C-alpha cells in the first residue's frame, strides 16, 4: 500500500492560515491504514487548526469530511453535495499525492493543499513501522531475485549483486537496514536458485519507470466506449 506521513503541523498551519473556512478531507484507503490520513487524523488536525486560530484571535470554520478513496472520481463525486466542501475556501487533503491532485482536478477553483508527505509503497511490519518494498519501476524483476526487490531495497539499485559496502548482511548507508543482496542471496539459496546470481542482468530500460516521463496505463480490455485515458 501507499504509506504516507503527516506533514509537520507548523507547515500545515502555515498553509491554511490565510483561509477562514477550511475543509479537512480524510481518505479511507491506504493512508488511513498507515494512520496518517484517516478520519481520526483529520479530526486531530482540525482541532489543532482551530486551536491555533483561537490563539491568534482569528475566527476560522474548520470542518472534517471523508471519502473512501480520493484517487477515484466515483468516490470524489460523493463530496459534491456535502456542505463542508461547498463552503470551504481551502481544502486540506489528507490523501496521498494522487488524492490531492485528483481533488484539485475535481475542484479547479478551490485552494487544495496537502496535509501529508507521501513516502513510499511499502508494508506494515509492526505498530507504527513501515518499510519500502516497491518503487513502481514498471518492470518487475522479483522472479529473478527470489521475491526481494533490488530496485527499491538496495540503496544503489544494483542488479548484479551487492556493492563492496555490504557488511554482515547490512547496508553501508545504515546499519539498521538489511543489504537487499544478502537477502536475495539467502532466499535464492533456500529455494535452490543460486544459479540466478550468475546471470549478468543487463542495463535496465528505465522508460518503464518515471524516467520515460509521466506514465499512463490504458487497458483496452476494460475500456468502455471512447476512453483513451485523456
Amino acid at each position, binding site marked *: 500500500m501507499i504509506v504516507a506521513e503527516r506533514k509537520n503541523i507548523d507547515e500545515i498551519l502555515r498553509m491554511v492560515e490565510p483561509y477562514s473556512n477550511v475543509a479537512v478531507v480524510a481518505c479511507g484507503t491506504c493512508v488511513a491504514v498507515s494512520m496518517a490520513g484517516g478520519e481520526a487524523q483529520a479530526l486531530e488536525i482540525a482541532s489543532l487548526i482551530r486551536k491555533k486560530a483561537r490563539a491568534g484571535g482569528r475566527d476560522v470554520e474548520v470542518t472534517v469530511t471523508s471519502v473512501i478513496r480520493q484517487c477515484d472520481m466515483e468516490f470524489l463525486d460523493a463530496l459534491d453535495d456535502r456542505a463542508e466542501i461547498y463552503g470551504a475556501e481551502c481544502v486540506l487533503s489528507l490523501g496521498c499525492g494522487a488524492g490531492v491532485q485528483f481533488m484539485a482536478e475535481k475542484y479547479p477553483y478551490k485552494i487544495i493543499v496537502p496535509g501529508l508527505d507521501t513516502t513510499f509503497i511499502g508494508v506494515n511490519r509492526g505498530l507504527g513501522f513501515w518499510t519500502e518494498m516497491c518503487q513502481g519501476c514498471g518492470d518487475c524483476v522479483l522472479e529473478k531475485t527470489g521475491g526481494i526487490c533490488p530496485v527499491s531495497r538496495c540503496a*544503489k539499485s544494483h*542488479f548484479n549483486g551487492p556493492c*563492496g559496502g*555490504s557488511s554482515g548482511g547490512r547496508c553501508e548507508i545504515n546499519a539498521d537496514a538489511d543489504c537487499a*543482496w544478502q537477502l536475495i542471496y539467502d532466499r535464492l539459496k533456500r529455494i535452490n536458485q543460486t544459479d540466478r546470481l550468475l*546471470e*549478468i542482468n543487463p542495463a535496465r530500460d528505465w522508460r518503464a519507470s518515471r524516467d520515460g516521463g509521466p506514465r499512463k496505463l490504458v487497458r483496452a480490455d476494460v475500456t468502455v466506449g471512447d476512453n483513451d485515458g485523456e
Partner: protein
Amino acid sequence: MTVSSAAASNFRRVLDSGRFSFTAEIGPPMSGDAENVRKKARSLKGFVDAANITDNQTAIVRMSSIAAGYLAYTEGVEPIIQMTCRDRNRIALQSDLLGACALGLRNVLILSGDHQSFGNHPASKNVYDVDSIQLLDAVRGMADDGLFMGGSRLKTPIDIFPGATANPFADPRELQLIRLGKKIRAGAKFVQTQGIYDIAKFRDWMEAVRALGFHERARIIAGVVVNKTQKSMEMTALVPGMDIPESALRRMRDAKNKEEEGIGIALDLIGELKNIEGVAGVHVMAIGWESAVKTISELAGMLPRPSFDEKLEEGSWPETKQT
C-alpha cells in the same frame, strides 16, 4: 583504426609482460587548483606504473577524475581513471569514456561508488542508472564491438583498459566471488582489491580466486593502505568493507614513530603479497601522504619501474564473452 602505441596503456604493458605492477593513488583536490595535482603527480613520477585518480571519493565533491587524470598524464604519470556509477547516467558515463580516450587516458577503474549519504552533499539524487557490472559491459561493448549502449555504432572504438574492484573481506564470500566472476566476464582485465591488512584472510581468498581461475583471466592487484597516524588507521577501519585485525591496530598503537611504523606495516604486507600466487601487483593507497610512495617503492625493491618501447602485442588478452 588502431591507436598509436605511444598512447597505449603502460600499465597494461607492465601487467602483460608479467612484471609485478606497482601503482598508487592521487586524490584530486576540493578545488580547481591544477598545481595541487601536478605536485602530487611529480612526487610519484618514476616510482609507479600508474596512479588511480579517485572519483569524488566518499561522495565529497572534488576536481573531476578525468581533468585531474589529464594533469597527472601531462606530468608523466599514467592515470587510472576511477569512474563510479553514483553520479552519472549512461549518457554522461559514455561521454566521459570518449573524453578520457580522446585525452589519451587509457585505464579506467569501474566502481559502484560510496553512497552520497557519506559525503558533503547527502541531499543529492543518486543516479545508479547502471551498476558497475553493467558499466564494465558497456566499456567492453564500446571497445570490442564498437557499439554504444543504445546500439548505435562508434566511428572509432574506444581504446580503454578496464578494471574492477573486489573486496576479499566482504561476506558472503560465495556471493562476492560470483560478483567478481561477473565483473571479469563483463570485461574487467585487472582487479584492484580493497586494502589488505589481514594476510591470512587474503591468502585464503586468493586460493578461492585461483580455484576459479580468475587470476588467469584478469590481473589481481592487491591493495595496501599506508597509514601515517594511529588515527588514520582507526579511520580506515571505519570505511565500509574494511577489515583491520586487532594485531595491526596494536602494532600502530604501540609504535613510537607512527610514520615509520605505517610504512613498516605496508612493507611487510607487500613482502608477503609479492609471494602469493596469482597476485600480479600491489596498489598503494597513501591518500594525503603521496611522498610515502617513493619510500615504499624503494624499500620494497620496486625500482626501477619497467619501461616499454616495443609495440603492445595484439591479442595478448583473452577475449571476453558476454553471457
